[in-house]
């Protein structure tokens, strides 16, 4: 018997006056899954997340978290950690007081010092929020989201403003939560983060779910790419098209065509300059979606 989804979104519509921000959106997130909701600016990700978080009402459709309405805070919040896109902490409270307050209200139990350690904020425990940098505020936000090891963690642009060390620490903490069985929902503009970690990705465009699947499923519909440049006067290789002065080969058979190209270069004695070859990346899918 399939597990009950942690998040169920059925034909969700969100409107602002006459503007439809989200249109007939449906997707499910399974227990323990890492689901990334990606999209262009204005695609409707934030509106969707706000409904999932219980901050906004849907115009129509149904959203359930653990089988409950997301607005039923008493039922849903103790099982859900939310990292908001914008911080929202009181500037006059210290880091420790902020984590203690939000943690106490979360309905979960944890040790504040342990959580500060996870977020790399131990040395800032007595610092007022008004004196934190943007990156430190994001880490504070993360600390409140993971307080008590919630079953569902919603991460809205979690690494914006973080340096590379802080990003690594954050993802290590998320990996640890996954190992313990937590379900993760991520929105981000850093596509490589989603590509590296997400079990499934939903690509939103203009309020709808344009495509959904694993990274492999999303990228297999687009050709892989071989890029290179040639010295002046060199003959043109087979199966190429010019792109901004360079050469490129789009192929669904990367290994075969790369072998052919290298064979041709060897046989004709031509040097392939700046040679790059690789499978389609998520940002290629993203660009293709934006062009549609």
């Amino acid at each position: 018997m399939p597990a009950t989804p942690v998040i169920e979104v059925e034909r969700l519509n969100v409107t602002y006056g006459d503007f439809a921000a989200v249109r007939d959106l449906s997707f499910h997130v399974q227990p323990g899954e890492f689901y990334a909701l990606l999209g262009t600016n204005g695609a409707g990700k934030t509106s969707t997340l706000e409904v999932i978080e219980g901050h906004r009402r849907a115009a129509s459709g149904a959203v359930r978290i653990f089988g409950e309405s997301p607005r039923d805070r008493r039922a849903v919040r103790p099982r859900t950690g939310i990292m908001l896109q914008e911080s929202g902490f009181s500037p006059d409270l210290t880091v420790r007081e902020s984590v203690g307050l939000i943690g106490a209200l979360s309905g979960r139990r944890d040790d504040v010092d342990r959580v500060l350690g996870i977020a790399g904020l131990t040395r800032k425990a007595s610092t007022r929020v008004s004196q934190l940098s943007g990156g430190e505020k994001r880490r504070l936000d993360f600390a409140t989201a993971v307080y008590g090891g919630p079953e569902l963690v919603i991460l809205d642009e979690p690494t914006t403003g973080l340096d590379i060390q802080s990003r690594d620490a954050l993802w290590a903490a998320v990996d640890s939560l996954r190992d313990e069985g937590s379900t993760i929902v991520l929105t981000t503009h850093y596509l490589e983060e989603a590509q590296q970690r997400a079990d499934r990705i939903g690509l939103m465009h203009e309020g709808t779910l344009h495509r959904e699947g694993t990274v492999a499923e999303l990228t297999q519909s687009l050709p892989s790419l071989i890029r290179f440049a040639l010295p002046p006067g060199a003959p043109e290789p087979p199966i190429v098209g010019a792109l901004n002065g360079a050469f490129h080969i789009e192929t669904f058979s990367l290994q075969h065509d790369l072998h052919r190209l290298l064979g041709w270069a060897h046989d004709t004695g031509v040097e392939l300059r700046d040679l790059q070859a690789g499978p389609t990346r998520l940002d290629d899918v993203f660009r293709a979606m934006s062009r549609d």
Partner: protein
Amino acid sequence: MLEIARNEMIQIFRNRLVLVTGLVIPVVVSGYFVHQHEVFSDLGSLGYIAAIVMFSVLAFGLYITAVTTLASRRQNLFLKRLRATAASDASILAGLVLPVTVIALIQAVAILIVLGVVATGPAQIPLLAVAILATTAMLVALALATAGLTNSPEHAQVTTLPVSLSLIAVASWVGITGTEDHALLKLLLPGGAATELVVNAWNGGVPLADSLVLLPITMAWVLVAVALANRLFRWEPRR
């Protein structure tokens, strides 16, 4: 709720601006009236001084501070943050306004005790307590409603003026001139019936039944304020 209130109390004592507007100004204004009680009792009565003390503390200390606090907490998305927890809306709002309400009530009671010591005490303490509590409830609800129309803490300096100055004006008009003329108008104005209740409770000499008639009007203003709060309060900044 208590956890929110405890942290709110910490913030009040760390913010000098809130401390000055919420604690110092009401005490200074009220202290002036108490110090000059002989002058003002000649102008109106001791009951009038009690009413003006109550409205000064509750309007300046409670109402303006609560509006400023709520606007600030909404502007920096702290309200949204609190709503991302398991706390209910009612407990969030109660936790946010509880400290400033308790501080204002303690201030009002303390200043009225001083007035009673340096002059003459109230004739009917229970009636006075009812008037203070009803006015407190009305101003908390009006603070929630006004916060809905207030975009920022700075904006609160403007949006709180109509209610706070009107209440002081009504309390002065009713307290000084009494309700023999224009009785209906004076009692139906916001704070009018509450002022008359305080005056009667402090000065005495009015049958209890006559004073109790003022209660429904006072409570009606509480209900109006609560209805306005329900309609106008916003949890997030306007987009």
